[in-house]
């Protein structure tokens, strides 16, 4: 894996921006009542079960869901590779069933683990071959390829055969391929699948830089990495069993499961226990954190408490009261829900958990069978330190 991408100027093309803003644009993605059934034995599989989706031009939109949720099926329909069984879908106003040529001129796609191309070709040749499929004049094609190779940070691999590339290098090359035709809409199907942390970060930075270069460029990302969706997406939909269970910005979705502000405080001492805190205005609950009374370096004990407040504003009263009790706050953390918590609340299981035996692919909403809750498994992941005192 080579280093991060070479610095490139990503200044938006201002005239294009003005022109783009001046005219009313149809939705980048307009999906209505899409259903897709695969006729397989022993019984048909419902991959999409009545999906409606509207993505504005310029949005970075994410589809978040576990394997088999229907994300890839939806992307294949939108990229004109698959016909819907029912419903309609449009890309910038072009129908995916009848106006495939127009859509294919303005879009591109990259999938995770993609092994496309011919091993006998070098990176440069492979990209040039694809540039010809998009109609770039031969010499323009070579120059464009060189620019993109620089932009994605594959300069050292330029003349290397693609059969010898690492997974991360290969995915960077795939990104360069996806950008050859200056797409208006970029479909990314789990693009960081199998990449190490550095390579995944490089890929995410590339997408953001590309999108920022021209107003109106739209990205549809499917992923089952919640942190990735949280970091990149303006809005996202949580998908399972071929249905959209929830849709909104990452913050909006997280607020759905966070009804209270939860804090964890670490104190040097707490005379009189937590009972006194419970009666304070705005405090919903206060409890000693089990097993978290630890010895400090000087041998003295510390006390950890979990506080649930009606909102963040109630924290001031708690801090004041603790001062009155002579306690010093050593650390303060706010616990925030993650997208996985949202998923667990909606579906009743985590991403990595197997579906229940009776949970067949008939598209039923599993909320009917599993109650909300079960947030314990992600406590560590969702705890983010916002402030440290003392």
């Amino acid at each position: 894996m080579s280093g991060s991408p070479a610095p490139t100027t990503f200044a938006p093309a201002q005239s294009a921006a003005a022109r783009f803003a001046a005219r009313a644009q149809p939705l980048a993605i307009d999906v209505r009542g899409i259903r897709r059934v695969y006729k397989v034995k022993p019984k048909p599989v419902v991959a999409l079960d009545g999906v409606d989706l509207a993505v504005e031009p310029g949005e970075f939109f994410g589809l978040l869901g576990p394997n088999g949720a229907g994300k890839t099926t939806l992307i294949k329909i939108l990229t004109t590779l698959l016909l819907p069984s029912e419903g309609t879908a449009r890309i910038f106003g072009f129908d995916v069933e009848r106006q495939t040529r127009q859509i294919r001129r303005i879009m591109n796609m990259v999938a995770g683990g993609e092994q496309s191309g011919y091993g006998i070709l070098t990176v440069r040749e492979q990209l040039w071959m694809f540039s010809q499929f998009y109609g770039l004049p031969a010499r323009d094609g070579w120059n464009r390829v060189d620019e993109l190779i620089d932009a994605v940070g594959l300069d050292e691999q330029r003349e290397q055969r693609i059969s010898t590339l690492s997974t991360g290098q290969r995915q960077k090359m795939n990104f360069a391929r996806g950008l050859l035709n200056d797409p208006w809409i970029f479909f990314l199907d789990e693009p960081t699948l199998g990449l190490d942390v550095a390579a995944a970060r490089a890929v995410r930075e590339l997408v953001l830089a590309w999108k920022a270069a021209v107003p109106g460029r739209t990205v549809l990302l499917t992923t089952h990495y919640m942190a990735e969706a949280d970091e990149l997406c303006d809005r996202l939909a949580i998908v399972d069993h071929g249905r959209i269970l929830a849709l909104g910005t990452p913050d909006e979705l997280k607020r759905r499961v966070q009804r209270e502000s939860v804090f964890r405080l670490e104190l040097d001492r707490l005379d009189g226990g937590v009972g006194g805190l419970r009666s304070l205005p705005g405090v919903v609950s206060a409890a000693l954190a089990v097993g978290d009374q630890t010895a400090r370096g000087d041998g003295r004990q510390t006390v950890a408490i979990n506080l649930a407040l009606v909102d963040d504003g109630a924290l001031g009263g708690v801090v004041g009261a603790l001062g009155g009790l002579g306690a010093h706050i050593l650390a303060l953390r706010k616990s925030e829900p993650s997208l996985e918590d949202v998923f667990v609340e909606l579906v009743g299981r985590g991403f990595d958990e197997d579906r229940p035996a009776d949970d067949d692919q008939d598209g039923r909403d599993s909320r009917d069978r599993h109650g909300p809750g079960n947030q314990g498994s992600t406590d560590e992941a969702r705890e983010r330190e916002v402030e440290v005192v003392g």
Partner: protein
Amino acid sequence: MTARADGRRTLDRPGRTAFVYRPTASPQEAAAWTRRQVAMTNLRTVVGRAYPRIIGLRRDKSWVFFEVLLPFLATSAFVFVYRALQAPPQYIGFVVLGGAMTAFWLNVIWMMAQQLWWEKSQGNLELYFAAPMHIMAVLFGMAFGGFVMSSTRAAAVLVIATTVYNVSFSVDQWVLLIGVFLLTLGALYGLGMMLASLFLMWGREAWHLTQLLVEPVYFVSGLNFPIARLGVLGSVAISILPLAVGLDAMRQLAFAGAAYPIGTPSPAIEALILGAMVVVFLVLARWTLLVLERLARSEGRLSVRWQ
């Protein structure tokens, strides 16, 4: 154009960066292509897709052994049989010509008919269909690349065998001979394009079908003997197999004046049959491709990963 420090050149256009190549005001403007753009894209696709095959000729030299020396040995076996039987000398030439044409049939059956299936398993096929060119342009590119590849191999077999076995050709109608050769290739690759679509639908069975087609087609095409010897079977082969009719016509033209088994049409008639085959196979290839693209999109067969 601006020359860079490393000698490569970059494009000078206002507002361009690596991430802005063809600034357009809207997706609608970007999607509105002229007829010329469409035609040029298809033409460039032919060149682009032919490139890996042509460059492969230079990079992967194993073809010299597998596709020149081994076919030469197979041809040699028949040469020795004919010599032992004291067959007329032109039979040696017939075998040599048949040995050279083998390269094209193998190319059509292994690298055209099977290709779309192989591209699908590699993940290339969905990228082809997701790109704006006509998929026929991809097939033409494969055919053109395959033609260059196979011509090199066929020429090598022809030159080596002709030299080693002292074959002398006698050509009266050069134009017709060249015409028949080109029509044979046109019909062969047209057949390959048509089979490519069909094999895409047959999936894994395509590999078995390919194997099934190799030897029988060798036999009924009269690769190592004049097809007239097959009687009615030969006539049927001439009416449906480009290799059979093309080879028969080329033998008649390349060994003019030699005693040739009667029972097959004249080269001119065979040229007309080949011409008809070119048209029929190309039209069928285009039609099957359109039908099967629709079917593949409907059944989810353009990619391996579908959910």
